[in-house]
């Protein structure tokens, strides 16, 4: 497997060390479970680099295909594994019931994602924000809701928090990529993920 991380990792390590030092001097926000620095470290993993050519459109196709290939009850499905090997973090974002409205208590968490995406260490990468539901309710509705929720997070990132829209896309995964396959109604399955999908090549 080829490494997708640019040469000169000494500089990266240095930057990361400095980041850690500044993180230790004072937590940015007590309300935030996940800090921007933690996200940066996870997202910058060379071992979990994305395969070349991966895109939000391809992931959406894979989700559609997964629904076709796996009819019936969740317990019989083969999990969608496409994203498992990629650098990613699970983020708990609170939405209003059955809607894509982000509750204010989660504004800071989305801010942490913005802190990470604005940092030069991650400047050369592009990302997807996914939405996931559990299996309560209708499968197609869940896919639509998860897409709307991912869209809302990306909109907040790219407008309020000024993240370059060319570097982040929303992908609804519905109930196709369950975290707890054995317990498909487990609320732990409801989550947003930030996933590094590879090099950002402007103009491509």
């Amino acid at each position: 497997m080829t490494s997708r991380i640019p040469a000169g990792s000494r500089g990266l390590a240095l930057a990361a060390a400095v980041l850690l030092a500044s993180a230790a001097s004072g937590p940015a926000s007590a309300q935030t479970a996940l800090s921007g620095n933690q996200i940066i470290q996870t997202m910058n993993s060379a071992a979990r680099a994305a395969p070349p050519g991966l895109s939000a459109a391809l992931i959406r196709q894979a989700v559609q295909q997964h629904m076709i290939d796996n009819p019936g009850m969740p317990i019989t499905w083969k999990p969608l594994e496409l994203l498992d090997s990629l650098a990613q973090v699970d983020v708990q974002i609170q939405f209003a019931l059955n809607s894509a409205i982000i509750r204010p208590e989660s504004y800071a968490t989305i801010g942490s994602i913005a802190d990470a995406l604005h940092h030069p260490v991650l400047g050369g990468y592009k990302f997807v924000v996914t939405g996931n539901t559990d299996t309560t309710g209708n499968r197609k509705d869940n896919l639509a809701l998860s897409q709307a929720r991912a869209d809302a997070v990306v909109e907040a990132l790219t407008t309020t928090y000024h993240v370059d829209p060319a570097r982040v896309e929303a992908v609804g995964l519905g109930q196709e990529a369950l975290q707890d396959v054995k317990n498909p109604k487990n609320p732990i399955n409801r989550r947003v993920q930030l996933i590094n999908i590879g090099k950002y090549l402007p103009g491509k």
Partner: protein
Amino acid sequence: MRLIVTSLAAALWLGLAGQVSAQTISYSEAGALLAKSCGKDIEKYCPKVNLGGGALKDCLAAKASKINPQCIADYKAVVASLDARLAAQAAVTKACRGDATQFCQGTAPGNAHYLGCLNAAKKVVSKRCTAAITNAGWN
């Protein structure tokens, strides 16, 4: 760097006048401050609008007479800080060019490599460059 919430607005306005010395807060801190000062009003008066796309701003403006003044003030301060942070990020390359040439010769290309060098050389790097990096949130 930790700002006391009540002094944030004042610090921002003072800072903005001096441009380079503007103090900015992180995106996470910005979100936390909005939630703290405006969360209750948002859930009460703007429960169907989202953070992004200007919807929240428009709703708070439309309901301004009912919204608590601290929320209005902090919302403005947050927007100003986020704008200042974005401007600082854009200004780092220019503000630090001289320092990079002087202190970071032989650094591999790529912003993060130079940033690592500049942060490591903090003691000798110019105030202008240090301020830009700080306000960009990259130190």
